[in-house]
């Protein structure tokens, strides 16, 4: 019971923090928000000239931020090895 009350209090606290934050956000889908103006225009405008790939998600994923994607694949690998280690039992004839 105490756990629920504490959780509700923390949740209310976090909600108010979130709401305070949201008030200062730019409007949703605003073409002039900073996120659309600072870094991303180069990805959109130069993707074909710099990488030859018309799909910007692929070009950013695999080239501009390819290093992230390498670790993302490693995350999957880590999870696979982790699940193997946690669950898999060795064979009898091993």
């Amino acid at each position, binding site marked *: 019971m105490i756990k629920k009350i504490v959780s509700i209090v923390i949740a209310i606290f976090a909600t108010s923090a979130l709401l305070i934050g949201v008030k200062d956000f730019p409007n949703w889908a605003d073409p002039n928000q900073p996120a659309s103006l600072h870094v991303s225009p180069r990805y959109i405008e130069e993707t074909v000239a710099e990488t030859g790939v018309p799909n910007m998600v692929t070009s950013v994923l*695999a080239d501009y931020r390819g290093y992230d994607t*390498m670790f993302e694949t490693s995350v999957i690998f880590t999870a696979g090895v982790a699940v193997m280690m946690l669950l898999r039992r060795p064979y009898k004839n091993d």
Partner: protein
Amino acid sequence: MISRWEDIIIETLSRFLVPFMQIYSLYVLAHGHGSPGGGFQGGCIFAASFVLLVIAYDIFEAKKRFSEKINGIFCALGVFIYTGIGWLCLLLGGNFLDYGKLSKILPTDPVMARYYGMAGIETGVQITVMAIMVSIFLDLATAGRHEGALEEEDVGVDSK
């Protein structure tokens, strides 16, 4: 443990579906440059074909086609391809993952070398995602007790 339950409709239909799913996953991979798609999506679809096989038949049937050892090697192979391409760029004199330097060994200009470099790493991603998804699914579905595996008491993990 998923045991076998024979049903001819399900088995025939899934046997039909599996090759189509696998070809579709390769299509998703190959067209990732020009349309939505790429290694992750393709890998998941490829893994789904195996999951379908496991559900329609049983685990032993599926593992005959894709043994555990090969799967484990594929897990590492995909990421190895990705990282290996990065190292190749490094050895060719660029920074890590600078695909433009691949033009020294590919018959293209640096921009198209980036294009092909991306294709290479997407393939690596597909292999790893496919193998790991299958491996996680099999481990979770059988709780790790594949055929011929030791019981918990022999392993001694649980007795502590």
